């Protein structure tokens, strides 16, 4: 068990595994996402209240899912960084924080685009949108702190503390924003409230979510591999790899 754990922490071992899994992640991701999107955008039935504009959920919902689960996975990696000081966990957090930021932005953007036909305005201080905005701030803070510290080990540990503080706060923020929302604008039409979705909408959504997760896995592998090469540039195995032409 411990040996396995240790092995998992070795950048070299991960590099090999990642290289082997990446084509599968990419292929699976593209396939599922394409299937989900084509089905969702072209074949799924129209929503009886929102018409075709609801179809943005096939991008909006997967992005929002990823935005949140990336933060949670960063928190898990942060624990690993602080407790076991595993190099790979540092690399993971550093690699995916910007990805999380982009997905958060994407879900905010698609939310705004969706809001225009639904509410007649680009931005509404809706509870979910506001929570996502705060999540964007949290990502921003994590990335800014990581960039500000030169020494990569210190940066990883400082970021880990920040991520954990953030993850403790996320439920509190969510709860407060929901409460604030009911206080200020009671009973608006909820954006992502899925109004008893029929199977024909639900299935393509599931496919897109899964597809985007796989693609995220692929992207994570690429970014982690790059980061590993930068960090381990002085080790023998990286040199040999470069000599051998990167294969």
């Amino acid at each position, binding site marked *: 068990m411990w040996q396995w754990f240790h092995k998992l922490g070795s950048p070299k071992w991960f590099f090999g595994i990642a290289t082997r899994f990446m084509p599968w992640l990419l292929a699976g991701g593209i396939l599922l996402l394409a299937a989900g999107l084509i089905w969702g955008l072209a074949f799924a039935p129209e929503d009886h209240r929102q018409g075709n504009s609801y179809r943005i959920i096939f991008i909006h919902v997967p992005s929002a899912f990823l935005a949140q689960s990336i933060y949670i996975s960063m928190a898990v990696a942060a624990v690993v960084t602080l407790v076991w000081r595993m190099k790979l966990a540092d690399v993971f957090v550093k690699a995916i924080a910007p990805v999380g930021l982009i997905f958060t932005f994407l879900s905010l953007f698609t939310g705004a685009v969706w809001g225009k036909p639904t509410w007649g305005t680009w931005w509404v201080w809706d509870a979910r949108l506001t929570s996502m905005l705060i999540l964007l701030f949290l990502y921003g803070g994590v990335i800014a702190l990581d960039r500000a510290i*030169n020494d990569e080990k210190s940066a990883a540990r400082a970021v880990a503390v920040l991520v954990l503080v953030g993850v403790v706060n996320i439920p509190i923020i969510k709860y407060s924003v929901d409460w604030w929302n009911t206080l200020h604008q009671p009973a608006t039409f909820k954006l992502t409230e899925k109004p008893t979705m029929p199977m024909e909408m639900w299935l393509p959504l599931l496919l897109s979510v899964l597809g985007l997760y796989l693609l995220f896995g692929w992207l994570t592998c690429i970014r982690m591999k790059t980061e590993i090469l930068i960090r381990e540039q*002085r080790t023998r195995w990286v040199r040999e790899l470069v000599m051998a032409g990167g294969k």
Partner: protein
Amino acid sequence: MSEPLLQAIDLECERDERLLFKNLSFSILPGTLTRVEGANGSGKTTLLRILAGLNDAWTGQLLWCGKPRAYDRESFHRNTLYLGHRPGIKPLLTPMENLRALMAGRRPVTDDVLQQALEGTGLAGYGDVPCRNLSAGQQRRVALARLLIADEPLWLLDEVFTAIDAEGVSAIETLLQQRAAEGGAVLVTTHHDLQLPGMRRIVLGEGQSNE
């Protein structure tokens, strides 16, 4: 009693992507005086900070009285005195207030003892002057006054002679020797040419390739 107080095994430290030292092992025995040597940037200060418990970015093993240091961190801190580059003196407080604050978390000390220590470092009569009105050398002397009241078996002193006049230097040299004779362990870094009988050496930056 020759059991080492502090034992370092295979210490390795990398800072800002530069390897400072690797496979560094040594023991610090009671009653010894050790000087850490090396060129600028060879990691003397970093080594002392690692030993003191300020720097956590190292790998290897550190044993305190034969057990991993992390087992009883409080006992380690209670028995170690570290004086760094920065004297740890608040410019707005008087020497007495500073010493009181420095000792407060460690052990109860009466004001008389602190007063004596200040007198011992040549600061008699300055007890009530804010430290920012003192010269750099005098401020360091406030920090050094702790050596006169210290009962910690292990001293880690980083550049203690900075800004100290010749007379003060020889007083400190005597103090360190006396300390070693009494069974205390002292580890110093200094640019000052320190030559004391029986002094041990830890040399950094030699025989360790920076790749």
